[in-house]
């Protein structure tokens, strides 16, 4: 069992080996399903010159926004970076490099990275700025552009429940980019709300099989809401 026990004692231990200049993929969509404690640990470590791959870049003062404030990110690969004033400032001043990637292409680039596929063709972005300087190939009379896979040194993901083996289940739409991110890094670190005994999770309900997970920690989550919208009861 010891060889399969992915548990580590702390977020600090979980990010052992993270150094300046590395590429990290971070799961989440907006602030939903982000690895809050692992991001905070990246912040605490103060590592710099990071390339961060994530659909969004947090908000001012929370999530990946924390790393922006401390100038730890030199390049961001994302589909949407709006609603973050510090990000706007660094983008306009040229302090940060940004590779805007369509959301589905971003997801598939990460998936491809984890699945051993170096690149793939997609119609998304043909004839737009995204397609510039990319190889174009015609299949059945339609143009497609070649998009390259993404892999990383570390993936930081957030799950709901996991067993010691690192088998993970996500909760509701907090799943988003996390399963793909889990597959595409040399070291995948997962933080979850609850670590359960092996056998407690139904094998056929597992979203992320433990083979993708190297280190597992349990965290406390604030789960900040970006846009609280309600109806009257």
């Amino acid at each position, binding site marked *: 069992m010891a060889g399969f026990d992915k548990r580590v004692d702390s977020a600090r231990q979980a990010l052992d080996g993270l150094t300046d200049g590395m590429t990290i993929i971070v799961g989440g969509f907006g602030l939903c399903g982000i690895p809050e404690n692992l991001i905070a640990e990246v912040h605490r470590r103060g590592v710099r010159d990071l390339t961060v791959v994530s659909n969004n870049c947090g908000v001012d003062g929370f999530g990946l926004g924390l790393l922006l404030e401390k100038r730890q990110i030199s390049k961001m690969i994302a589909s949407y970076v709006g609603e973050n004033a510090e990000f706007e400032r660094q983008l306009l001043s040229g302090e940060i490099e940004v590779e805007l990637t369509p959301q*589905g292409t971003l997801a598939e680039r990460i998936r491809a990275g984890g699945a051993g596929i170096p690149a793939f063709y997609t119609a998304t972005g043909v*004839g*737009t700025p995204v397609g510039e300087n990319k190889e174009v190939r015609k299949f059945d009379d339609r143009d497609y552009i070649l998009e390259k896979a993404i892999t990383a040194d570390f993936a930081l993901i957030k799950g709901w429940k996991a067993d010691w083996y690192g088998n993970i289940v996500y909760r509701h739409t907090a799943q988003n980019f996390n399963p793909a991110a889990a597959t595409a890094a040399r070291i995948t670190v997962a933080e979850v709300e609850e670590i359960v005994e092996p056998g407690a999770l139904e094998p056929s309900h597992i979203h992320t099989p433990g083979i993708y997970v190297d280190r597992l920690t349990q965290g406390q989550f604030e789960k900040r809401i970006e846009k609280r919208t309600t109806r009257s009861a």
Partner: protein
Amino acid sequence: MALTREQMAQRVASELRDGYYVNLGIGIPTLVANYIPPGIEVMLHSENGLLGMGAFPTEEEIDPDMINAGKQTVTARVGASIFSSVESFAMIRGGHIDLTVLGAFEVDVHGNIASWMIPGKLVKGMGGAMDLVAGASNIIVTMTHEKGGQSKLLERCTLPLTGSGCIRRVLTDLAYLEIHDRAFVLRERAPGVTVEEIKAKTAGRLVVPSDVPEMRLSNDANHGSPAHA
């Protein structure tokens, strides 16, 4: 009279069919969910990984793990499913979504659409819009006919594109148009709007058939509908 945002949503909603899986963009498209015709069932897709988006939650129901692509708190309706971003965009790219409704800054007679970037202003990113326009075969663009006195229906888009040659149908506050053979074909007028006014406000080539009926707007807001009450 130009259509209100609600009337535009109402007109688009009349294109919904029983059993459709539908992706609604932010803005006017979101309002379409309030006008789902009675007696039909549609399933709303949200690209962060939710098929079967329901109403906004009550205060008691709010769950930070349950949001839509606009990052708003939502609920899931009966029959919903939740999945990864990879799966969500496979549905989009693979052409499984029956109808996509989204806004735009410009559309042209070649079916090009510009909706994500205005150079010189801040670029916030394209999100899922490029995947949606490339993957869907059935798209309706909703936008105002003009902005600041400038037509948004052009011979050639001036802004960076979201997709090329992918748009066939446009609903504006003045008209419903289709794009055929490098021209806008005027299919319907907003009630009280003349063909002359639409001609004057359309910069791209416009074909006007002999009969251009007024739009019919019959559905009242369906407040019992599953989304965006």
